[in-house]
């Protein structure tokens, strides 16, 4: 009995168990401090759906051995270009959303290709280089948001007449196009069916891609580059392809996020976007070199569960909002844990 628990602990790792127990205790405490569990679960699901595609976008790069994509902001930027351009064109509804995706994907593919070329030259140091590529690209685009000739009055600053606003509402364009598709509403309970289906579709695509010959080759390149090379796999090409796929999914992911959130956030807002997504994936059981669809779903759900539950429960319990601090500790603690763990296994 104790042995099997010990094994389970070893397999899941202490941080993950502590966080799961923490979340469980939140759900147990909730009814005692007058918080409806139904609403909480509904909120968790909405936020899960909103963030799921961004978390999913990390998987191809992890599988191909490029590590955790701390440069996810590149994909996010491509998505943002798609979003503001579709609003500039004035396309509304699902067509507007698809236009945004259509514009975002080529940008993401081009950015991803060069990003992949770079990462192939810095093998072993991908993560730290990626972080700063992500940071600098966000700063670069901040200049561009000021300079690019967008004209739609819904997006530019009221005074001066140029430069995009820091937050742009997507209301009247494609707010909730996925969330409201086939959605279910019972009292306070809301299920964003469309977004979940959309996530499921992309997850299925990625999953089946990794079942194909190409996908297997990519996994092999990540598991053991020398062996893969000997087996005739072009490791560098696999890595570039994985980076392109990750970047494209991230660009779609931010659009999914925005249609649910309701706003496009520009300038320095995407700066730290990669970290919560990475933390969620790790929380779901992924490591620096291995990730699955299950990790994405469990991780995104646990992570968003904590983000949803802590503020309300803590607020009612101790009359102050510790959620931000807890978010910082949980997400970065999880990443530090994962970074130190793999080296131990290797020994």
């Amino acid at each position, binding site marked *: 009995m104790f042995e099997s628990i010990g094994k389970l602990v070893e397999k899941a790792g202490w941080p993950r168990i502590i966080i799961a127990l923490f979340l469980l205790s939140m759900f147990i405490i909730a009814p005692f401090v007058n918080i409806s569990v139904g609403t909480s679960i509904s909120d968790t699901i909405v936020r899960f759906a909103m963030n799921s595609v961004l978390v999913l976008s990390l998987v191809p790069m992890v599988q191909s051995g490029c590590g955790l994509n701390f440069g996810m902001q590149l994909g996010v930027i491509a998505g943002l270009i798609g979003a503001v351009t579709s609003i500039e064109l004035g396309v509304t509804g699902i067509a507007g959303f698809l236009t945004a995706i259509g514009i975002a994907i080529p940008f993401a593919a081009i950015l991803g290709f060069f990003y992949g070329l770079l990462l192939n030259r810095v093998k072993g140091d991908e993560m730290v280089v990626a972080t700063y590529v992500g940071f600098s690209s966000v700063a670069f685009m901040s200049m561009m948001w000021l300079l690019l000739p967008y004209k739609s009055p819904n997006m530019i600053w009221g005074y001066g007449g140029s430069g995009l606003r820091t937050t742009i509402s997507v209301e009247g364009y494609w707010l909730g196009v996925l969330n409201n598709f086939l959605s279910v509403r019972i009292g306070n309970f809301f299920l964003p069916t469309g977004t979940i289906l959309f996530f499921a579709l992309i997850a299925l695509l990625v999953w089946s891609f990794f079942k194909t010959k190409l996908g297997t080759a990519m996994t092999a390149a990540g598991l053991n580059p020398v062996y893969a090379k000997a087996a005739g796999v072009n490791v560098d090409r696999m890595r570039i392809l994985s980076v392109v796929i990750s970047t494209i999914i991230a660009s779609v992911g931010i659009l999914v996020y925005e249609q649910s959130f309701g706003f496009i956030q520009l300038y320095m807002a995407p700066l730290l976007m990669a970290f919560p997504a990475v933390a969620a994936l790790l929380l779901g059981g992924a490591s620096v070199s291995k990730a699955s669809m299950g990790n994405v779903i469990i991780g995104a759900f646990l992570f968003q569960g904590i983000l949803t539950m802590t503020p309300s429960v803590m607020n009612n319990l101790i009359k102050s909002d510790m959620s931000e601090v807890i978010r910082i500790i949980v997400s970065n603690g999880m*990443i530090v844990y994962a970074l130190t763990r793999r080296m131990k296994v290797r020994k």
Partner: protein
Amino acid sequence: MKDQSLTRAKNPLVRFAISNAVPILFIILLIFAIPLSGFSADYLLNEIITRLGRNSFLVISLLIPVMAGMGLNFGIVLGAMAGQMGLIFMLDWGVVGIPGVVLAMLIGMPIAILLGLLAGTILNRAKGREMVTSMILGFFINGLYQLTILYGMGTVIPITSNKLLLPRGYGVRNAIDLLTIRKALDNMWSIQVGGIIIPLGLFAIIAALCIFVFWFTRTKLGQDMKAVGQDMQVAATAGINVDRTRTLSIIISTVLACFGQIIFLQNIGTINTYNSHDQVGTFAIAALLIGGASVAKATIPNVFIGITLFHLTFIVAPRAGKELLGQAQIGEFFRVFVSYGIIAISLALYAWRRQVEKETERRQAKAAIKAAIEDGTGG
């Protein structure tokens, strides 16, 4: 590969230009930007002297981990947080002036040592990816720091001053005045030459630190660190305790960063309790890299050249941006872009060079084996 052949260029002038490409690029940038900004020479000189005074300590704190082969220590934010905690206690106890600064350092030091020990231990478990780990560790400790300051102070940790605490009775305010120690070190033995104020006392402290670092590289521990930095396995077989040496380098770096942050904040005159430390790592590292340092080699001249060039860019970029494009904000974003971009490029170039070297080595080894086999069959 192109990169490597270039560093081997025969012409010494070309070699100099290649190995100092980053500082040269910045000098060229500044040659254009300074006249555009329209600042007077006196103003710029004063600004540079102030910024050298307040940033040198922080940037120097990066040198020792580089020597120990641990790369750029993004974890100096840990030291910065320790320093800020020292300052909070000092303010609560009402000590002013230079004794206050010394007290803050004395309180900050044990916290910095503990945090450094923690960081060193964690980084020893993440060999080969120290930089990204130290960066995320900084974020993680930031969470614990906020927990301590926002919820622990005034409840578990005794802080009584109403000026420090939030109106609700616990947690420290977002912005705290440091009027009681403002420029305490800067004004020590400061002299004025023409229109330029020189804080001789502060510069003496920085000079002492430089001498310390120089002396340290000559000690047994310093030599051990160099050996560990070159090759951990060789160092271990030579009887050096690798993990302990690496941890010590991080502890020293963290303690220096703690002092550095106190010096920085006494010059600024206020603490943003929850933000002041955020960018310490990024800015110090960007400055060091702009000074011509790399992940594997950083010297004291790199520190001073780097701070001068980086902060000149900082001062003139917004004004130049305004003159050139009519928007000061572009200049602001530009300098953020420059600090992140320079780190990205430097790290990428270093990693690339290392990869090329590894491949060349492997190819040479292969050729040697092949030659040996052929020798064997032939003879």
